[in-house]
């Protein structure tokens, strides 16, 4: 099956526009400052890096899919995913794949 057919079967054919990355309105700035402060508040002395989390991500996703308490089992991975949007995005996509494809 071709990629496009797989895609259409899963998600339909509606075109989805990506959200504009530029949203630097004044109204967002208070929110951004709050976001930064939340990050500071959640900062730990020892944190895993993106590479370390990537090495464990497949295992983490499978444990989560099995209903395990991953926050308890792999707290440092969970914490990194809370802090890092790039890794969190990758986790969410991999989670969808494991739930629906793998």
């Amino acid at each position, binding site marked *: *099956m071709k*990629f496009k057919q797989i895609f259409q079967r899963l998600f339909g054919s509606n075109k*989805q526009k990506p959200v504009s990355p530029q949203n630097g309105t004044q109204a967002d700035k*208070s929110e951004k400052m709050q976001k930064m402060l939340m990050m*500071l*508040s959640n900062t730990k002395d020892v944190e895993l890096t*993106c590479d370390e989390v990537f090495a464990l991500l497949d295992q983490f996703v499978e444990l989560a899919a099995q209903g395990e308490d991953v926050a308890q089992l792999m707290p440092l991975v969970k914490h990194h995913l809370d802090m890092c949007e790039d890794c969190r995005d*990758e986790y969410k*996509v991999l989670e969808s794949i*494991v739930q629906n494809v793998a």
Partner: protein
Amino acid sequence: MDKRTNEEWIADLRAGGEQQAKALEDLRAIILRGLPYAIAGRLDPNSPESEALAEEVVQETLMRVLEYLDTFEGRSQFTTWAHKIAVRAALTELRRRRWREVPLPEMEMNEDGDSSYRELPDDQASPEDQVDRKDMLKRVNRIIMEELTDKQRKALMATMEGFPLEEAAQRLGMNRNALYKLMHDARLRLKKRLEKEGLTPQEVLSVFEQAGK
């Protein structure tokens, strides 16, 4: 074809010849079934661009799988491990395409720090709250100026503006992992300095939350 055990995947991919080719063909089909979940909501699935991206990512993933086969430790299904590599490759490329035209935000720094963050929207906060908030912003900006390196400030600004870490890292001439470490160091410095000044992030946050009410 999908029912290989982890050991069988490894053996087939290491075998070379037709055995390896068949395993790669099967893995390719598996990865292609997963990729729509990476592309959904990020690119028009009907565009030639989307199909070309999928092809590009599959090729890259298969190459990486072979290259890093020895690092697979069997702590997950082999196919989950391969999907993980594909997801990273796909999202990296999608981020690059989405953000490539967007310049890193510039900071207009002065002795008080980034001026743009001193002018918050005029919401319904009381005059006292607004004064508190302005003072606190000035203080936070000063701490940012004193504690962080130029690179850390640029990275902080970029991530506050929503730049993906990976894309900000590339613009700053480093990789994502190194930027995460740099930002972790920046967060620790800011947190410790706030503590030294008798503040916790929660207390600073409460000033903004009250002001926003």
